């Protein structure tokens, strides 16, 4: 089901948690809300769920205005950060709960409920554990139960709050891939909240980057990474270097040196140059470049990270080189960004 968020404002007391947020989510999409803590991503998720009420604005499920509906009426599936399993119920009872409590008119027969729950247990690969209690499961298994429980009610939209936050790195990676598979198989419209960019970029169809109660950018993982629209997104996603430059007659200048990058069409004046450590080319001789002295160099997996001191006013930048390229301390390296972006304050 499509979910449309329109001009949502949310204030806690006087603190504005969300400020005029609008977002269209297509049916069947897997979408990530990404941002640092306090960016409002969890609040947005809880508003869609109906666990919070907007101060202002509307939320549509399909063509229907859902914002006046209670959480119970919205028929959503919510997976909580700490799973919130009912600890006095078995795995099977946890998963059947949402169906069992329906009023008699809408409740499937108990055999149907059981069949549906067992299907889900199978889907989340917990067959044989249906009689266990949550206390007898591992973190990853609890997570799967929580997901199956949320899917049992055939939700309009599946909402996950930091679904992998409480798991260790290994299990996290595994479950991430598995969640993508489940999503592709079931096709639920899914929104998940995360502060982990790797998770968002790997898993989601589209990523919503949030900061300070506002949406900074919405786009596919490639768009978010390759063409960030704001300094915040550039800085938040991946590694980046920031240099103070000057635009003058279509060229970029650091102090009185041209760095050999043409910025045709940019108006003259001071600006911030953003570029990623790996979006550079090395230059043998410097007729317009950025040059610096190597102050540190370390090998990280398939690349060499080199820290350069490029002069007192700019400080240090980090670039990535192929591992076979040596960079001895105090040696001089000249380079030029190949892909970059200018932001003006």
């Amino acid at each position, binding site marked *: 089901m499509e979910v449309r968020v329109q001009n949502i404002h949310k204030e*806690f*007391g006087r*603190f504005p948690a969300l400020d005029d947020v609008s977002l269209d989510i297509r049916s069947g999409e897997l979408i990530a809300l990404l941002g640092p803590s306090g960016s409002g991503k969890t609040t947005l998720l809880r508003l869609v769920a109906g*666990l*919070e*009420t907007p101060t202002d604005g509307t939320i549509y499920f399909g063509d229907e205005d859902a914002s006046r509906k*209670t*959480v*119970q009426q919205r028929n959503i599936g919510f997976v909580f950060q700490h799973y919130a399993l009912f600890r006095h119920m078995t795995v099977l009872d946890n998963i059947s709960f949402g169906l069992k409590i329906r009023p008699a008119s809408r409740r499937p027969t108990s055999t149907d409920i059981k069949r549906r729950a067992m299907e889900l247990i199978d889907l989340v690969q917990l067959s044989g554990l249906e009689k266990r209690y949550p206390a007898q499961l591992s973190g990853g298994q609890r997570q799967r139960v929580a997901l199956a429980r949320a899917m049992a009610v055939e939700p309009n939209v599946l909402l996950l709050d930091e679904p992998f936050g409480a798991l260790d790195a290994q299990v996290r990676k595994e479950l991430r891939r598995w969640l993508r598979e489940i999503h592709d198989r079931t096709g639920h419209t899914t929104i998940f909240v995360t502060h982990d960019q790797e998770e968002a970029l790997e898993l989601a169809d589209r990523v919503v980057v949030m900061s300070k109660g506002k949406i900074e950018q919405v786009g596919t993982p490639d768009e978010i990474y390759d063409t960030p629209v704001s300094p915040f997104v550039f800085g938040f996603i991946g590694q980046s270097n920031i240099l103070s430059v000057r635009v003058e007659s279509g060229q970029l200048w650091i102090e009185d040196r041209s760095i050999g990058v043409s910025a045709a069409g940019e108006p003259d004046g001071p600006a911030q140059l953003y570029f990623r450590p790996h979006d550079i080319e090395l230059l043998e001789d410097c007729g317009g470049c950025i040059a610096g002295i190597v102050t540190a160099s370390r090998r990280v997996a398939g690349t060499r990270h080199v820290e350069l001191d490029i002069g007192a006013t700019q400080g240090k930048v980090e670039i990535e080189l192929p591992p076979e390229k040596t960079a001895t301390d105090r040696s001089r390296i000249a380079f030029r960004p190949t892909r970059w972006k200018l932001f003006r304050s």
Partner: protein
Amino acid sequence: MAHDSSDPIGHHGNSEMVASATSESRMARYVLIGLALCFVGLFVLMPLAAVFTEAMRNGAGEFLTVLGDPETFAAIRLTLLVAVIAVPLNLVFGVAAAWAIAKFEFKGKAFLTTLIDLPFSVSPVISGLVFILLFGSHSLLGPWLQSHGIQILFAVPGIVLATVFVTFPFVARELIPLMQEQGTSDEEAALSLGASGWQTFWYVTLPNIKWGLLYGVLLCNARAMGEFGAVSVVSGHIRGLTNTMPLQVEILYNEYNFVAAFAVATLLALLALVTLVLKSLLEMKFSEQIAASRRH
């Protein structure tokens, strides 16, 4: 999350719609609070109020005369004496038991903990009876005690023994969960720095548990001063000699001397209130230390 401060009967939510998800309707809240207040009012506050009003029925003058009575005075003295003996004994025992149980792993630990709790599930009357059977004239020890002129029953030693029996678990059961939660790393650190066992206990363990200890002593003392059933069985009700304050209350009441009975009861009720105030203060100020033991 912000509270709705305009609502005196508030809930930890902040708007009507959210309220429907994780809280009850205003109506249900009022009904539940009403029920709870009625229950506490009926069963706790009214009896307490009755004690004070009955004591003052004939004015403060008579109230004070009753308290000046030598028998009452003797009862107060005996009650204090019993508490002064019983509480420190159980304090030492409680610390020792908690040290053994909380700081070490050994076979039969769970069983030992159950045994310590035993007096809680024994009727006070039986707690008194066991000493009658042990020291009474029909018992094995009775004739021997008699021939050596040792008086235990119907005398102060019997009252002390019965009180110690009844208040036996109080300090230990406050300290055990607290010390278990604190673990042994502090002590190990002290030992590694060269402290002796006693130094470790005195400078490291004791400061860590002092408020929990005080809490246990408070409860132990309240029970020691207020114990009725066990003491009643072993005391023999000898006026001016073996009557504690609760027994004095009973005697006066049974003589239809209600004002006097309630006057003595007032003192005990004040003791209970002081205990509750100190207990609440301790819980408020040192909640993290006492939280462990409140979970029983």
